[in-house]
C-alpha cells in the first residue's frame, strides 16, 4: 500500500424500502410486472392529484436512521426537486432538501482480514424520496424509440449519504457490505442490486503528497456500478486514472468542474458521461401539497425498540459467548439473522461453539452455495447437526465419517443416530476394539518388530487393516491401543 496518494471516497446509496405500496399512493411496488400496470392518477402525476405520505415508509426510514446512529430532528418536511425528464411525469421529484428526516450518523466498519483498521464511516444524512420511472431506449433496427415505464415511479427510496470517510476501495466495499447487511437485518429492504432496489453512486478523488504539500484532484462521481465488486473495481480503476491524469495535466480540485463517469463493466473502465459545466439548479422548494412531519420521541423509541440485535452487537456476542474468532463471527453474521440463530442452536446443542462454526462454514455453507438456497431451506435441523457434532466430539465418529453421516442426514432427513444405524455404523466399545487390535498385532509380527525398533509410522498399515475389518473403528484410537499393547509386551 505504498501509494503516493490517499484515496478519498464518499458513497450515496439509494435503497428501495420494502413497503407494499408506493410513497404517496397505494399502488403496488412489486418488481417485474408488465410496464405501466402498477400506476394510478397520483403516481403518474395526473393534473389535480395530490400525494399522501405512506406512514410505513416513514417508519422504515426512521428505523434505518436510528440503526445508523443518526440524529432525528423533530421536524422534517418535503421538497420538490425540479427537473425535466420523460420518466418524471410531474416535472419534479418529491424529496427532502434542507431538513432531512435524519442526519449526522455513522456506521462502524472493520475487516476480519485486517486489511484496514476498524473505523466509523460518518453518515451525513438519510432522507426519503420518491423514485422516478424507467426510460427504456429501444434502438433495434436503427429506429431510436424511447418508452417509459412508470411502475417504479413513486416507489419509496431512502438515500443514505456518507461522509467522504473511506480511504480505499476495500473500505468502500466493506461499508456497502455492512450497510446492506444492516438493512437486511432491519428488514427494511431486499437490497437487490439487479432489480435496482440498492443503487450506489460514488464520489472519489485523491489527496496527493507532493513536495509543495498536499494536492487534491478534481472530484469525480462514478455511476452505473451493478455489484459491490464492480464498485470496488471501478474505484480502483478511477483512483489510478486520476493519478495518471494528474501526472499528465497537474489539474487540481477547482481547476475543472465536477464530472460524472460511468463504469463500463465489460471494458472494466470508467468513461466520462457529462461534465457538470453548469451545475444543475433544481430549484428546490417546500412541497405545498404535503404537510411537514413532526417526529416524536415516542416514534423514535418505538423505532429503536424494533431494531433487534444488529450485526455489530451480534458479532461481539458470538465471540464472547461461543468463543469463536472475529473471522468466524463475521462469516456467520454476514449470512444473516437466520444463520446466526441456526448457529446458536447448533452450538448450544453440541455444547461447543468452535466445531459448530467449523461445520457450518465448511459443510453447511457449501451445500447452501451449491443448491443456491438459504438456511431456512436446509434439510438438517440445527438440533440434528448439533447432535452429530456432539458424536464426533465424543470420539464416536471421525470427522470424515461424520461428513458421510451428514450427507445421509441431508438426503434422508434422518437424525444422526438413525442415519448411523442405517449406514451400519455402530460404536465399538473399548474391549472389542482392544480384541481387534490384539488380533492385528498377532497377525503382523513384522510390524510389531518395526515399531519396537522405533518406527512408529509402521502402525499406519495396521490402521488400514482395522478399517477394512470394521469401518466403524476410530483410527486414532486404533493407533493408541496398538501402541499401548506393544508397550505392554515389552
Amino acid at each position, binding site marked *: 500500500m505504498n501509494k503516493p496518494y490517499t484515496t478519498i471516497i464518499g458513497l450515496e446509496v439509494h435503497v428501495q424500502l420494502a413497503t407494499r405500496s408506493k410513497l404517496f399512493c397505494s399502488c403496488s411496488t412489486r418488481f417485474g410486472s408488465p410496464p405501466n400496470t402498477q400506476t394510478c*392518477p397520483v403516481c*403518474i*402525476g*395526473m*393534473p*389535480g*392529484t*395530490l*400525494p*399522501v*405520505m405512506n406512514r410505513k415508509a416513514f417508519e422504515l426510514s426512521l428505523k434505518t436512521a436510528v440503526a445508523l446512529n443518526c440524529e432525528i430532528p423533530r421536524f422534517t418536511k418535503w421538497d*420538490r426537486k*425540479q427537473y*425535466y425528464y*420523460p420518466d418524471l*411525469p*410531474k*416535472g*419534479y421529484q418529491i424529496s427532502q432538501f434542507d431538513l432531512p428526516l435524519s442526519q449526522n450518523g455513522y456506521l462502524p466498519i472493520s475487516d476480519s482480514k485486517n486489511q484496514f483498521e476498524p473505523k466509523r464511516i460518518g453518515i451525513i444524512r438519510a432522507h426519503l424520496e420518491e423514485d422516478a420511472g424507467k426510460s427504456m431506449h429501444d434502438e433495434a433496427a436503427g429506429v431510436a424509440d424511447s418508452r*417509459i415505464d412508470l411502475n417504479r415511479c413513486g416507489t419509496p427510496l431512502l438515500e443514505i449519504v456518507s461522509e467522504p470517510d473511506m480511504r480505499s476501495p476495500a473500505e468502500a466495499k466493506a461499508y456497502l457490505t455492512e450497510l446492506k447487511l444492516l438493512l437486511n437485518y432491519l428488514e427494511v429492504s431486499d437490497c437487490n442490486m439487479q432489480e435496482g432496489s440498492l443503487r450506489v453512486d460514488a464520489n472519489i478523488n485523491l489527496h496527493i503528497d507532493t513536495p509543495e504539500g498536499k494536492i487534491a484532484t478534481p472530484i469525480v462521481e462514478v455511476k452505473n456500478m451493478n455489484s459491490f465488486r464492480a464498485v470496488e473495481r471501478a474505484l480502483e480503476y478511477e483512483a489510478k486514472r486520476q493519478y495518471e491524469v494528474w501526472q499528465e495535466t497537474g489539474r487540481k480540485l477547482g481547476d475543472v468542474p465536477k464530472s460524472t463517469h460511468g463504469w463500463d463493466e465489460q471494458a472494466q473502465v470508467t468513461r466520462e458521461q457529462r461534465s457538470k459545466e453548469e451545475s444543475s*439548479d433544481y*430549484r*428546490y*422548494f417546500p*412541497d*405545498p*401539497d*404535503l*404537510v411537514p412531519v413532526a417526529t416524536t420521541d415516542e416514534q423514535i423509541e418505538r423505532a429503536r425498540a424494533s431494531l433487534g440485535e444488529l450485526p455489530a452487537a451480534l458479532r461481539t456476542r458470538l465471540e464472547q459467548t461461543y468463543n469463536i474468532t472475529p473471522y468466524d463471527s463475521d462469516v456467520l453474521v454476514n449470512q444473516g439473522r437466520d444463520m446466526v440463530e441456526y448457529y446458536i442452536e447448533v452450538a448450544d446443542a453440541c455444547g461447543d461453539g468452535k466445531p459448530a462454526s467449523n461445520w457450518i462454514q465448511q459443510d453447511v455453507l457449501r451445500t447452501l452455495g451449491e443448491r443456491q438456497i438459504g438456511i431456512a431451506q436446509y434439510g438438517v435441523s440445527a438440533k440434528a447437526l448439533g447432535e452429530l457434532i456432539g458424536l464426533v466430539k465424543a470420539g464416536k465418529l471421525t470427522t470424515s465419517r461424520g461428513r458421510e453421516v451428514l450427507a445421509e442426514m441431508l438426503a434422508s432427513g434422518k437424525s444422526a443416530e438413525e442415519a448411523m444405524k442405517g449406514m451400519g455404523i455402530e460404536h465399538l466399545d473399548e474391549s472389542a476394539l482392544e480384541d481387534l487390535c490384539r488380533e492385528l498385532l498377532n497377525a503382523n509380527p513384522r510390524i510389531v518388530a518395526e515399531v519396537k525398533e522405533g518406527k512408529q509410522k509402521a502402525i499406519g498399515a495396521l490402521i488400514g487393516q482395522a478399517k477394512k475389518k470394521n469401518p466403524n473403528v476410530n483410527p486414532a484410537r486404533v493407533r493408541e491401543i496398538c501402541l499401548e499393547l506393544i508397550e505392554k509386551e515389552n
Partner: protein
Amino acid sequence: MSLIDQTAVELLSNLTSGNLTSVELTGAFLDEIERRDGAVKAFLHVDADAAMAQADEIDRNRTAGKPAGRLAGMPVAVKDLLCTVDVPTTCASRMLENFCPPYDATVVARLKAADAVLIGRTNMDEFAMGGSCENSAFHPTHNPWDMDRIPGGSSGGAAACVAARMAPLSIGSDTGGSIRSPAAMCGVTGMKPTYGRVSRYGLVAFASSLDQLGPIAQTAEDTALLLEVIAGHDLMDSTSVDRPVPKYTETIGRLLEGLRIGIVPEHFGDALDDEVDAAVRESIRVYESLGATVKNISLPHGKYAVAAYYIIAPCEASGNLARYDGVHYGRRTDEHDSLIGMYSRSRSEGFGPEVKRRIMLGTYALSSGYYDAYYLKALKVRRLIRQDFDRAFDQVDLIVGPVAPTPAFKIGEKADDPLSMYLFDLYTVGTNLAGICGISIPCGISGAGLPIGLHLQAPTFEEERLLRAAAMFQRATDWHTRKPSPV
C-alpha cells in the same frame, strides 16, 4: 317569479316536495343557457343530454322511493379545473384542450353523491391565472350586467352563470380572490373557505398553498347549502383538515349578537373608487343598525400582500405546471427534433402569455441565488400577514371592506398592463396568504349600473360566522336580489 329566478333553497324545497322535477328544473336552466350564453359565454362545455339524463335518473330514483342526496336534482355548474371522469377538464388552456380525466375530484364526487346535476363547465382565466376571465384560451366571458365588461376572474364563468341565472349554484376556486372578485363584479355571493376546509384533490393546481374551492350562489343561504355539501376532510388531500363540518344551513338564520366589525383605514385610500367607497361605508352602517360595533384595526403588513402573493403563487405555479411538457400531459408540438426542443415548443404553443409570465416569474424567484431574496422573504412576509390577522381577530369578529377597488372594468382595458391587473387583487390576496375565510356579497350598484361587492373576512374555520353575517345583511338589504336585465 320564474323558475330560474328562485334561490337554490326554494328550488330544493320544491324538488323535495315533489312540486318540481329535476328534468323540469334542469331543462329550464339549459334553456336559459341556450338563450343567454351565446352572449355571456360563461360556459366552456355543456352536455345537455348528459345533464338531462342525470336529472331523469334522479327523478326516477326519487319516484321509486330511493334515498335522495342533499342536492338531489339541483343543477350545479363547475369551474373547468375540477377533474371529472370523462368530461373535458381544460383549465381554459390549449394545453389541456383534450384532457379528459379518468377520475373525479373529491368535490365532484361529493356533488355526484349528493345527486346534484352537473350542468356545465364554466370559463375561467387560463389555469386560474387572472382576474378578468380574459386569459381564457378559448374566449372571454362577458359580464351579464354589461356585455362590454369583464365578469371578474378567475372564476368569471362561475360567477357570470349564476348572475345570468344559467345555474343556481356554481363551484369556483379562489387563489388570490378568484371567487370573491367575480362574485363582486357579477353581483352574486361567493365564498373562499378556510384553507383545508374543502378538499383540493382533483383541482388542477395553480398555487397549492393558496388554492381553495368554494361556492358561488345568489344568496348566503344558497352558499351555505353548497358549502355544506363540498366541505370536509379528505384522506386524498393531506392539507385538508379533519374537523367536523357545521350545519351551516341550520344556523344561518341566527343573528350575530354583539358583532364586532373591524375596518382597515388603509383600505379606503386613493386606490378605492368613490362609489365603491360609499357603498362599503353604507354597508357598514347597515351592520351598525343591526347592533354591530365598528372599530378601526391595523394590518400593518397588508401593503406587502400583493408583492408576497405574486412571488409565492408563481413559484408554486412554476412547479405545478412543469408536468405540461408534452410527454405525459399537455399539448405536444407537431414539429420537434430533440427532447429539449419538444419541451420548449410544446410549452410555447400550449400556454398563453399570462401563464408564461407567471411560470417565468416563479422559475426566476426559485433559482439559486434568488431564492432567499424572493421566495424565502415572501414566506416571511406571509407569516407576518397571518400574524396581523391573528392580532386583528383578537379585537374583532369580522373584517369588513371592499372586495375590489372598482366595479367591473371594460374588456381589454387592462390587457396591456399586467401590474395594474395584479394590483386589482390588493384586498383579497391577504385572505389566501393567511389561510382564513372570506366572502363577497352584493352591497350596491354603481351609477353605471354595475354591482359592488362587500368583503367580509373571518378567522380560520369561521365560515359559519361569515354566512350568518352575510345572511343578516341580506335580510336587511335587497342588493342580492338585483338582477341584470335579460338580453
